[in-house]
Structures are given as C-alpha cells and as structure tokens.
C-alpha cells in the first residue's frame, strides 16, 4: 500500500474517533459470506482464442467471498469501511490470486448544513445509465465482465457544497486505490487517457428541480486531455423516467484494427447514452437504452480486426508472433468492440422481499451479435439467499458477443451474518 493511501486510511479511521469524543455516534455493521460456482461454455472455433491457448479461460470456478462493512454516523461525522476478501479455485486455467482489499474506506465531515468534505477510498460513480456510464471518467465499463463483482473506490478527497437547487463537488485524486488485480478490468474503459488517476482534479456541477436533475463533469490531469461529461434525468410522470448521459475523452489506448498497432492514449472520442424506464403498477420496471461509443470500431473496422485475427490463427502453429498478436487483439481491443448498442432490461421491484429477478438483452447494432442475461435472487430464510446468473451469447465467431464464449452459468448462496 502506498504512503498516500495509508495516510488516507489512517485519516478515515482517525476522524470518526475524534467525532466520538464530540457527539454520540451510531455504529452499525454488516457481514455477508458468499459461495458460488461458475461454468463457462467456450466458443469452439474462436478466431481470437483458438483452442483456448490465448485467453486460457477456465471451464469452471469455485469461489468464496466475504463482504463486511462498518459504519458510524453522528450529526457531523460519518465513516464507512467496506472490505472484501475473495478466494478462488479454477479448473481449466491457472488459479487467480486470492484477493483482499478495502473497496471503500472514508470519513465524511459536515462543516455546516450545506458543506461536507470526504477523504479516503471513495466510490465516485453517478449517472442514470444502466448499460454503461458515459459521463464517468473512471468507471465507464465497470463490472461488465464480472457483473457480480463489487467495485472498488479511488483514494481521493472530495468537497461538496449543497445549495437548494444546485451543488458543486470538487475532487482531488491522491492515489489509485485498488484499481489493479481483480478490479483492473473495471477501469479499462477509463476516459481520462490512462488508468493512473493520481493527480486528477474533478469538478462536478449539479442542478435539480422538482422532477429533473442534471450534472456537468470536468476532469483533468496535468497536460492530459480534459474529460467532459454530462448527464440528465427527467421524471416525466409517476411511472416514466427519461435520461441521457454523454462524455468526451480519451481511453488509455486504441488498437488500430488493421495492423494491431497501439496508440496510447487513444484520440478523443465521444460516448452517449439515451434511455428511459417505465414502472408498472406492480413495481416491475422496463428499461430501454441506446448507446453510442465513438471509441469502438465501425463495422468495416471490426471486419478488419477479425480478418487480422483470422490470419494470426492460421499462422499460430508456425509463427510464434501470431500468439502475441492474438494476445494483443484480446487485451487491447476497445472495451466495447462496436459503436452502436441497444439494450432492454425488465426487472422486478428492487424492494421485493422474497424474489428479485432481472432479464437483460443487449445487441451490438453494428455486427448484430446479441447477449441475453438473467439474474434471479431468492430469499430462503432471514439469513440465506440463493442466486443464479445465466448468460447466453448469440453471434458468429467474427462478432463481438460470438467471439469468445457461448454462455455461462453461475449459482451461489449468500449468508447474511450481521
């Protein structure tokens, strides 16, 4: 752990102790233990991962995870510490390292009714989009490869002034936090031109009325390109919510599709999302979204990308460089291969006490490949919940969703200890 991160964690522990001396603090905690098993069905004739020699994807995986949180709240101080510990055993691939980290650890001090400062490991996420988060410079692509994996925060200091209809937030990032290891993939869609966030200053201006909210986000580090993002949401009626998100920045890298040459950072490009939701009388909600990602390939570029991969696959047995080329194709490709996506979600009410379910369909409108996902959570007792997650991909081997996996299944149990 780096010195600055250590200081922040000490600070986040020290402040609540000071607060305890000043005013009574309500302490509470949660502890959840999970055990889950996953199985993947690989694409047998993959162009990017022939014979699974490049990606070395596992066939199955068993994992155990503990998620614990302690928090304290008083009139002027809050603190939160959330820790994750994961142990994993895989079949068909090398075991990933066991991992333990603090996903959030911060203290918040309220100076007066309107001003608060926070310091520590903060989860800087926002925006109404479900499919991706174009208005976020750090977490555009968060959690899309491992959707049940929890996000980790970034080590930063933040000050918020909350007016009646407006608020302003200033953030300074001191350290990357736990952005590597199992969390690394969450930051590969960074729109700051890098995954090294140290030294970034972020300004967020928010406005809100009785039935709308919008926000402008600016993030900059030294001589790097300025990230500009914005989002807005409008509660059109009791049941209808309309929203939009947009961002303009650069990614850590761009892989030229016809030569696999890397440009780092990528040129500036725009991303945008339009969406809406309708809530039925029974609390179920249907979402529809359209996403444009200017960092992705158009259909011709995507064809070129797979054509190079096809050549490399043919030469794999005779040419050692071909494996490196395929590795580059997998590791450095845009986080979204295409440019235009449509998505629909249908889910039960998040407050449902016994059974929660969600179905999600996503289509790459450029190559017409599709993905269907379903998540079900069934509460068995007060402390025990079963959950299952099913993914099925549809598409040819030279399309985004058809390139690597046919599908996956995950079954697990959560036990709420505290």
């Amino acid at each position, binding site marked *: 752990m780096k010195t600055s991160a250590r200081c922040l964690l000490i600070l986040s522990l020290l402040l609540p102790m000071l607060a305890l001396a000043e005013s009574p603090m309500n302490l509470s905690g949660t502890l959840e233990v999970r055990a889950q098993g996953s199985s993947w069905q690989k694409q047998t004739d993959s162009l990017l991962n022939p014979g699974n020699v490049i990606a070395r994807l596992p066939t199955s995986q068993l994992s155990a995870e503990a998620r614990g949180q302690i928090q304290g709240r008083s009139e002027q101080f809050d603190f939160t510490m959330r820790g994750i510990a994961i142990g994993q055993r895989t079949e068909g691939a090398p075991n990933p390292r066991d991992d333990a980290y603090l996903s959030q650890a911060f203290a918040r001090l309220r100076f007066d009714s309107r001003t*608060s400062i926070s310091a520590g490991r903060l989860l800087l996420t926002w925006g109404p989009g479900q499919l991706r988060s174009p208005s976020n410079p750090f977490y555009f692509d968060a959690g899309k490869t491992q959707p049940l994996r929890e996000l980790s925060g970034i080590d930063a200091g933040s000050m*918020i002034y*909350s007016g009646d209809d407006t*608020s302003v937030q200033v953030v300074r990032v001191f350290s990357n936090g736990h952005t590597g290891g199992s969390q690394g993939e969450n930051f590969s869609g960074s729109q700051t031109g890098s995954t090294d966030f140290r030294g970034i200053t972020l300004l967020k201006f928010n406005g*809100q009325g009785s039935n709308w909210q919008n926000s402008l986000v600016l993030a900059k580090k030294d001589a790097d390109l300025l990230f500009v993002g914005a989002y807005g949401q409008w*509660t059109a009626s009791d049941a209808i919510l309309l929203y939009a998100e947009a961002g303009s920045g650069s990614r850590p890298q761009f892989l030229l599709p016809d030569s696999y040459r890397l440009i780092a950072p990528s040129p500036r490009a725009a991303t945008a999302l339009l969406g809406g939701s309708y809530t039925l009388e029974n*609390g179920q909600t249907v979402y529809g979204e359209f996403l444009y990602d200017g960092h992705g390939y158009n259909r011709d570029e995507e064809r070129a990308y797979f054509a190079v991969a096809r050549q490399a696959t043919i030469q794999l047995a005779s040419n050692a460089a071909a494996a490196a080329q395929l590795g580059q194709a997998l590791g450095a490709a845009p986080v979204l291969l295409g440019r235009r996506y449509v998505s629909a979600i249908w889910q039960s*009410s*998040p407050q449902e006490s016994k059974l929660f379910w969600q179905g999600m369909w996503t289509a790459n409108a450029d190559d017409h490949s599709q993905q269907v996902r379903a998540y079900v959570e069934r509460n068995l007792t007060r402390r025990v919940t079963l959950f299952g997650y099913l993914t099925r991909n549809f598409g040819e081997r030279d399309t985004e969703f058809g390139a690597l996996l046919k599908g996956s299944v995950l079954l697990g149990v959560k036990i709420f200890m505290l």
Partner: protein
Amino acid sequence: MKFIKLWIALVLGLTLTQVSRAEPNVQALLAASDRARAGGLPGLVWDVRATNTGSSVIDNEPSVLRLKAADNASLAEYLEPLRSKGSRILQVGRNMWFTKPGLRKPVAISPRQRLTGQAAIGDIAATNYAHDYKAKYLSEESFNGEPCYVLDLTSARDNTTYDRITYWITVRRHVGIHAEFFSVSGKRLKQADFVYDNKISVQGTAIPFISKMTITDALTDAETVLEYSEIKIEAVHRSEFDIANLQ
C-alpha cells in the same frame, strides 16, 4: 408566557372549530392536520416498522426504516431485515434514487416504486398536504364514531404521490384519521387509517403525533401497517440529501 401560549392555542382551536361548524377554513385545518404527520416542521428523524399482510404476500417479515426528512426531501435507510440492511432511498421532489451496499451506483427510480408492500415513500415521509394539494370542503360526517370534516384534495403540484385524496379530519383534534387515494382517472387506489398515540412538542406545546398508519389496497386484500417510533424533531443537514453523499 405559558398562559399566553395556552390562550392562543385555545382561541385558535375554538376559531377553527367555530368556523368549521359552518364551513371550516380548510387550509388552516389541513395545516393543523399536517403537523400531526410531520408537515411544516423544520426536520424530522424517525423509525418506521412496516408489516405486510394479504394473500399475495409471500414474506411477512417486517422492515424497519430510519427516515430523515426536511422540506421536499427525505432519506430512508433500511435497518431490517438483515439482507436489506444499509439499503437507502433518497427522494428530492420527484427525483428518487435507490442504493444498497455493494451496488455500483445509485439507481434512478420513478415515484411509482414502493418502499415496501403498499407503502410509497410519500406515505412514510412528512405530509405537506396544505402545501401540495388544493382543498375543498365536502361535508361533515362521523368516522369510527368521531365527528369529522371531509375534504376533497386535488394535487396542486407535480411532486405529489396521489392525484386526488378524500380526507377525514376530526372536528375536535384536527388530525386526519382516514384517507382514500385516487388516480387521475378517478380509480380508487388504496385507503389509509391513522392513529395518533405519539406526542411531540412544537414551540413548547404538546401535539398529537402519528403512531400508526394502515394502508389497504383497494382491489386486493393486501395491507401494510406502518408504526412510527423514535421521533425526533430536528433540522437535517441539506448535504444529507445530496445524491453525491448517498454512497
């Protein structure tokens, strides 16, 4: 000083009663009934226990929420059951967000989302009918043996939970004891009965305060009982209702 306050309260009470016998000053009556449901107070922190019953209920484990409210904003945090502990719903006007520990980011939700069972956030947060609805006097009738003014409330703002409410306010105590809630089309959605066994002090005067609300669905046998406790009248920091502080 105490005598003056008592005298003002008596005169005010008598005035309201006398006026109402003919035709009550409906806005003053509504404002008085709102105070017993936390309306017009500088801020409020309370715990709400919600229990759901009915043939469609497959899990009748109660939920306990801690609610902070001020002006047009409220923040509800689940304390029970264990699996929901730490989940929060923030409402500012008609803007609403839901989050829980481990969730990637707060999710924007529509006002139609319910907190639990039949209860919407508008049922649990402070009531400001005098501000949010235009009231019309309908009649005087007895409800559960207690003489009541019956008012017809029509939504005057776009942030109300219901489009129209018929509201029974007692003649003697000036508290709402029964309400029927309607949609724009005039369809009755649900009804609620209120009990006021709590007491709070407002400017040194003890007033009755809501202790229980029973919400019954108009079309099914579903019922949600909300019990209010640990009531504290205190200002809540504006920054607590900032979405950026929700995580």
